[in-house]
């Protein structure tokens, strides 16, 4: 303590400021949602042969948004047939021409970016700040990036003469509906494949609006087909004999099922599955930025992120200081209406997911971990969950092992770099890891040893179309993004 006299107060006391952020809602009517959506097949929307529709709801209000066709095997077959028919023409088109379609789509996405961001938030529950500032810019960027590859594929992989594979069946998740579409559709089309895409059951709307954009862009009929539905629709896509390539992003459980389904066939397969990312903070880290990194690592998109940094490892010598800082930072998180521009943490995507989160959090408490939640108020309707921090967690706890896919962070401590690596790698997953330290050689040492497809050093949850993404071990195989991501959609002699 210094002996300095810090005389306070220059002015008479002033009444405390009423400092409130706007309930500054993005206008929901920026996007026009239809009452009913069909399937998008062969360049147009059709009523499903199944005659079945599912209701997509807004998870923040539990109110229905629209009815969406649920494709059955017949519908999927129709889509695959259209994709097959379109394949020779699309594959034969010069790369330069294919590129221009994708560039055009990228531009149209940018033009309608706000509208699509609102749609994404309404259908999925993610904060508008994220759909506006992260998802949509990246969606356009993926099309822009891959467009440029379409006429340069022979330069991407030395010694190969690459060709498109054929019809790609793509099954995507609900956490980044449009971004996952972009990750899959853009490279597939750039490489000359045609696509049958199945968006997630709870978030089909943006894919259908995207289909509309593709049609307006003049994309030849059949090159892109969208078949909404649930698990059975996905199974129909995976099992269809005329599909040449399957790309799946979702749970490890379903990924394994798909692996079994395509066993013994000639279908090419890439899987982007679950994770239990380790976020490691050393005592010499830039602490306040590490706090932001940890917060972003687990609360970005309500923790519905396969690469979420859901296991925090703090070096024991700073654990108290760091966790104090983290707790007070959590108090500042704004949880609530996803359409509010000031919201940091939005709605949990579905009732089922909320239940799973609640179940695992309960398990964490029963196993004796200490739980902290900020005192924020939650909306009365909709699916919401408080940002949650567990301390005193052991490796053997379920909350340290299982993917929660929600805003729940499990904290453990470590003493040495060796121990940090050992604990971080002690999981069947291997998607992403984070390291915070100021010491350069330690970063490289750690990066060499962490068994995960992405290592974020002194940052977290960064994505870019030029940067390959994908897992080790049970987090799946194959990469998406970058030059490496193209390979999943090409065949060549010698490959």
């Amino acid at each position, binding site marked *: 303590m*210094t002996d300095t006299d810090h005389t306070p107060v*220059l002015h*008479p006391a002033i009444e405390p*400021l009423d400092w409130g952020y706007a309930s500054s809602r993005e206008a929901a009517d920026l996007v026009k949602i239809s009452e009913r959506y069909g399937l998008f097949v062969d360049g147009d929307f059709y009523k499903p042969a199944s005659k079945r529709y599912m209701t997509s709801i807004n998870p923040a209000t539990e109110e229905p948004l629209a009815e969406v066709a649920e494709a059955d095997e017949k519908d999927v077959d129709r889509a695959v047939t259209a994709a097959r028919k379109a394949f020779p023409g699309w594959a034969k088109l010069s790369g330069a021409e294919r590129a221009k379609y994708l560039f055009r789509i990228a531009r149209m996405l940018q033009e309608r970016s706000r509208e699509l961001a609102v749609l994404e938030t309404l259908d999925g529950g993610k904060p508008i700040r994220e759909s506006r500032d992260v998802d949509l810019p990246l969606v356009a960027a993926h099309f822009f990036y891959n467009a440029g590859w379409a006429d340069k594929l022979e330069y991407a992989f030395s010694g190969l003469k690459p060709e498109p594979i054929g019809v790609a069946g793509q099954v995507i998740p609900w956490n980044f509906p449009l971004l996952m579409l972009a990750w899959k559709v853009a490279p597939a089309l750039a490489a000359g494949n045609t696509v049958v895409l199945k968006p997630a059951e709870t978030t089909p709307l943006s894919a259908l609006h995207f289909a509309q954009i593709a049609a307006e862009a003049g994309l030849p009929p059949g090159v892109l087909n969208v078949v909404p539905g649930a698990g059975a629709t996905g199974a129909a896509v995976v099992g269809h004999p005329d599909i040449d390539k399957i790309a799946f992003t979702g749970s490890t459980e379903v990924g394994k099922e798909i692996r079994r389904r395509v066993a013994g066939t000639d279908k090419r397969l890439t899987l982007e599955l679950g994770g239990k990312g380790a976020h490691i903070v050393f*005592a010499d*880290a830039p602490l306040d930025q590490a706090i932001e990194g940890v917060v972003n690592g687990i609360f970005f998109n309500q923790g519905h992120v396969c690469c979420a940094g859901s296991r925090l490892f703090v070096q024991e*010598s*700073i654990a108290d*200081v760091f966790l104090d800082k983290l707790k007070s930072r959590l108090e500042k998180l704004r949880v609530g209406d996803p359409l509010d*521009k000031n919201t940091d943490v939005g709605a949990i995507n579905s009732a089922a997911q909320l239940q799973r989160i609640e179940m695992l959090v309960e398990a964490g408490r029963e196993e004796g971990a200490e739980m902290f939640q900020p005192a924020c108020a939650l909306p009365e309707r909709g699916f919401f969950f408080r940002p949650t921090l567990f301390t005193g967690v052991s490796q053997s706890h379920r909350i340290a092992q299982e993917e929660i896919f929600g805003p729940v962070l499990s904290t453990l401590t470590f003493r040495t770099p060796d121990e940090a690596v050992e604990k971080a790698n002690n999981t069947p997953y291997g998607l992403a890891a984070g390291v915070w330290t100021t010491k350069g050689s330690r970063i490289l040492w750690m990066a060499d040893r962490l068994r995960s497809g992405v290592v974020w050093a002194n940052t977290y949850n960064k994505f870019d179309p030029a940067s390959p993404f994908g897992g080790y071990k049970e987090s799946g195989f194959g990469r998406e993004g970058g030059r490496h991501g193209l390979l999943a959609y090409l065949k060549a002699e010698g490959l």
Partner: protein
Amino acid sequence: MSLPAVAEPLPAKPSRSAVQAYVGGVPSVDEVAVTERVSTLSTRSIKRESKMAALELAVRMCDLTTLEGKDTPGKVRQLSAKGVRPDPADPSVPSVAAICVYPNMVPIAKQAVGGSGVKVASVATYFPSGQAPLDLKLDETRRVVDAGADEVDMVIDRGAFLAGRYLEVYEEIREVKEACGPAHLKVILETGELGTLDEVRKASMLAMAAGADFIKTSTGKISPAATLPVTLVMLEAIRDYGALTGVQVGMKPAGGIKTAKEAIRFLVVLNETLGLAWMTPDWFRFGASSLLNDLLMQIRWLKTGRYQSGDYFTKD
């Protein structure tokens, strides 16, 4: 093992090695992450009812400043009048916090603000370079306080700081603080000359340990001056120092803040980092000359619903 994340508080008369260790224990700063954080915070929008309060608060937080070689008594009188009553057409607009001037202008400013409650701040310690012997700096400090300055804005010796002579910087601030007597001391780090955010954070921690009542970004003579990343890092240092010692220290970004929109962004960063306890002129100031008129224009726009013209606001 590395040093603890936040150093121990310094003893009253620290040794050279104690000061070195204290500064060495300050955590590093990642520039990219800081920039990212402020850009996220810059997307915050505050509600309409709060906006008026925020603008008025920003007015009340202004250290209305003129620090030029061509300053004259006339200029200082006009500026003081503006500070006391920023918008003659709207008496509900509050006065600024202080008028900030060169030492020679202190008596004039003091007289001009009269009993309005507006403070007079003087730069001292051979502003802006600080390149002078310590006894001259102390003498200047005593003189401005004697002349009536309520607040003293000193500059640190950046040369000594960058050369690693932390004890020297520390002792200089301590002695200036003593020379201030009852006057309030703001310590200017001149962050634009420190080069990195790491140094900004270290200098902040050092200045606070030495007795700064406020830490302040810049003289306004060097660009870049008060940026949001620099301000965030200094606010984080204030938070750490408070956790370490229980002492609350104020913050003054100065230089380059010209629009109400920017000012509100600073307030958002302040609120998110330190909270409401700092959201008063007692703990936060803007050092600015042209910011005030933009604040006034925005206040009038909120009141009238018409976009404003500079011709309707006094330039002093």
